[in-house]
């Protein structure tokens, strides 16, 4: 439905084919293509474009001083053709593959006034144009050759803070986007190769961490400069028409490969329904993203139109949600196809309903869009995609069960041990567990599918700059979803306030606290639900003085306060106060009592599974010394489980309305 805010719908960017774009005639596009492209040149240049993309990525990481870019890789880069269709994308946060929408919006809305010229840079973090939430800021560079727009380079980096009513800009108390962080709708950051000081001030002034944003801004510019120089080197050596032909063929080839693969899968419909609890502070609702994934011949239809209406601050906009679903497609079905999204997307048809959680109308709250609406969209896609792939003998090896069902966000704000103000984010949840495959276990603390090279920062980084120390960072027993193939374990961290008695606020939020959200496949179990709490007035200092190192918050004495899924700050008030968070693992695949007992034994010996869970869920009984499988007792226990199922299960039977004709 149209937004109630006058003129807002103009910012609802959509991906459009070339022929529908309305671009000012004074902007000339480079569309000359070498017709006779030889295969050797194609291969050389295709890989060279990838290398340019890699160098874009590395440049950001090396120039920025923000831990998000230097340590965690919560960013990504891409290269598009002249109208924004992605020729390649980096391996950072893959859902940033939605930048095509932003380029097309710029072409239609900025080509006449203020114009798009050589040496320009555009900055955008408008979720209704493309961003996942306000923190994800993009800088887009048009690259010209002989006066014509040849291509674009893109980069998106999560910024620590972009204003709004909560430090960190995930504004769970915000009624709508007007109370959230700032966002800019593709403003001109640089002109004629010069950074506009007024725009830099506009960007930095609204943040609690301008020093970090300033560093990222320079990283954006350095990355754009490197990419532009490398693209010119290619053009100078091979000619613009040849480089453009390689870009076109790269996209065409990826389209051909994905369509060929789709034709090898059976036609059908696969559905998933993924929930999230609490849409903001004080809310107790449950919200579903629903996907009907239909495969028809060589096209794939993502129909999210049955998703729940928008609510609170957990919403995402179309660009972010489309990017999320695409990221999962790339990580699964297309894991071995070049990620030329501009070609792959031609085989995809996305359907969203305006006014819903993953296609919110302006000015709905979207500050948690990345880890809420987008993430739920990813979860729904992982499960539906896995069910589709599971139906194919040839492609079932690409099945991945529900993975890292939510992204626990851990922001802190206070005065550090040096007396300086500090705001930053702990991103350890990037080491969540990956879901089981159809032929093997999931990777323990393997990461996030949508972030192939995402990683948690070194402990030493946080301990050097901020007043806390890691008491533990470990894999969590029984957190990998049970199954014939076990899901990867999630992790847990325990942080102690240290070297200060100044109060330190912890803001934690997530979903999957009231129920697990990594969902299994074919009898595989989900992972264990998330958990987060603090403990104050603990006996931790005394324990450390006795050289006792606790491995869980449950071992501590003190006042323990759990977090809600959204909307609670907890304060650490003195050295020894403690923060604990467990983040989810991956889900299982197949019936747990079909798992080889020896593999369960290995899991128990490695503390990935407890002996109790092994007996209760896997039906595996160990010998008294715990060192081997008690085979007769295991067979008896598994028979007991089957008997329990037989005695307790009922068959629902369809009503006449539920019978499919």
């Amino acid at each position: 439905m149209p937004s109630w805010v006058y003129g807002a719908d103009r910012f609802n960017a959509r991906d459009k084919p070339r022929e529908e774009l309305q671009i000012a005639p004074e902007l000339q596009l480079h569309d000359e293509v070498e017709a006779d492209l030889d295969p050797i040149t194609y291969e050389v240049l295709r890989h060279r474009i990838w290398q340019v993309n890699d160098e874009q990525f590395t440049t950001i990481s090396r120039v920025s001083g923000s831990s998000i870019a230097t340590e965690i890789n919560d960013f990504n880069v891409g290269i598009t053709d002249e109208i924004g269709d992605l020729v390649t994308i980096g391996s950072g946060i893959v859902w940033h593959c939605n930048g095509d929408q932003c380029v097309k919006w710029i072409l239609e809305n900025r080509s006449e006034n203020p114009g798009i010229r050589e040496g320009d840079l555009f900055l955008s973090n408008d979720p209704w144009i493309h961003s996942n939430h306000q923190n994800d800021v993009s800088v887009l560079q048009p690259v010209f050759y002989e006066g014509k727009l040849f291509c674009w380079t893109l980069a998106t980096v999560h910024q620590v803070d972009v204003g709004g009513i909560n430090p960190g800009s995930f504004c769970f108390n915000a009624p709508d986007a007007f109370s959230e962080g700032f966002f800019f709708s593709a403003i001109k950051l640089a002109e004629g190769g010069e950074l506009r000081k007024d725009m830099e001030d506009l960007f930095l002034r609204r943040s609690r961490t301008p020093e970090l944003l300033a560093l990222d801004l320079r990283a954006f510019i350095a990355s754009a400069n490197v990419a532009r120089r490398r693209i010119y080197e290619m053009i100078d050596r091979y000619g613009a028409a040849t480089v453009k032909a390689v870009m076109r063929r790269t996209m065409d080839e990826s389209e051909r490969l994905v369509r060929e693969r789709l034709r090898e899968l059976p036609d059908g419909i696969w559905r998933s329904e993924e929930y999230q609890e609490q849409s903001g502070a004080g809310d107790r609702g449950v919200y579903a993203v629903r996907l009907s994934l239909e495969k028809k011949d060589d096209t794939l239809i993502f129909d999210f139109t049955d998703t729940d209406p928008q609510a609170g601050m957990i919403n995402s906009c179309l660009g972010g949600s489309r990017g999320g679903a695409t990221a999962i497609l790339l990580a699964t079905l297309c894991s071995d196809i070049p990620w030329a999204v501009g070609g792959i997307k031609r085989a995809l048809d996305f359907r969203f309903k305006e006014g819903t959680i993953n296609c919110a109308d302006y000015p709905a709250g979207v500050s948690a869009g990345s880890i809420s609406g987008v993430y739920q969209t990813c979860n729904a896609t992982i499960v539906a995609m896995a069910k589709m792939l599971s139906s194919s003998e040839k492609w079932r090896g690409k099945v991945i069960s529900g993975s890292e069902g939510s992204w626990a966000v851990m922001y802190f704000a206070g005065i550090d041990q040096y007396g300086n103000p500090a705001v930053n984010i702990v991103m350890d949840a990037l080491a969540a567990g990956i879901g089981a495959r159809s032929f093997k276990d999931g990777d323990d603390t393997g990461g996030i599918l949508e972030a192939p090279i995402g990683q948690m920062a070194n402990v030493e980084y946080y301990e050097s700059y901020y007043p806390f120390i890691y008491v533990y960072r470990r894999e969590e027993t029984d957190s990998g979803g049970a199954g014939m193939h076990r899901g990867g374990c999630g992790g847990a961290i325990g942080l102690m306030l240290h070297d200060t008695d100044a109060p330190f606020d912890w803001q934690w939020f997530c979903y999957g606290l009231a129920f697990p959200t990594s969902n299994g496949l074919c009898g595989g179990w989900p992972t264990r639900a998330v958990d987060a709490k603090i403990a104050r007035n603990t006996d931790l200092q005394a324990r450390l003085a006795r050289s006792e190192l606790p491995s869980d918050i449950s071992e501590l004495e003190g006042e323990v306060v759990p977090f809600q899924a959204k909307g609670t700050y907890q304060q650490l008030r003195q050295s020894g106060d403690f923060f604990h968070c467990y983040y989810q693992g991956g889900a299982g695949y197949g019936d747990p009592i079909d798992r080889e007992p020896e593999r369960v034994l290995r899991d128990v010996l490695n503390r990935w599974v407890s002996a109790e869970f092994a007996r209760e869920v896997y039906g595996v009984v160990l010998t008294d010394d715990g060192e081997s499988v008690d085979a007769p007792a295991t067979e008896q226990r598994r028979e007991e489980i089957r008997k329990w199922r037989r005695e307790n299960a009922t068959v629902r039977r369809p009503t006449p309305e539920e019978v499919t004709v």
Partner: protein
Amino acid sequence: MRLDEYLNIESDKIVCRKCGHVFCGKHDNYKLHAAEIEREFTDVGLLRRPQSELMDRRIVFRQYFCPGCFTNIENDTILDDAPPLHDKQLA
């Protein structure tokens, strides 16, 4: 023809790959013909605090088994009042 790890489609019927039990027609929701058990996440060790501390509605762990061999063929994390999701439907 394969539907998933435990189910096949044979002669337009969904059947268990382990024991041959016939569930239903290939376009029907096999979950409506499966043996079903609904459990609380707190009871199966996947949740350590009461759901009611966090939300007003109830989401359950719903397990589906083959009525022939009682293999656990699928699970849903689902609202307690929602019907079984028809999740796999080949053309």
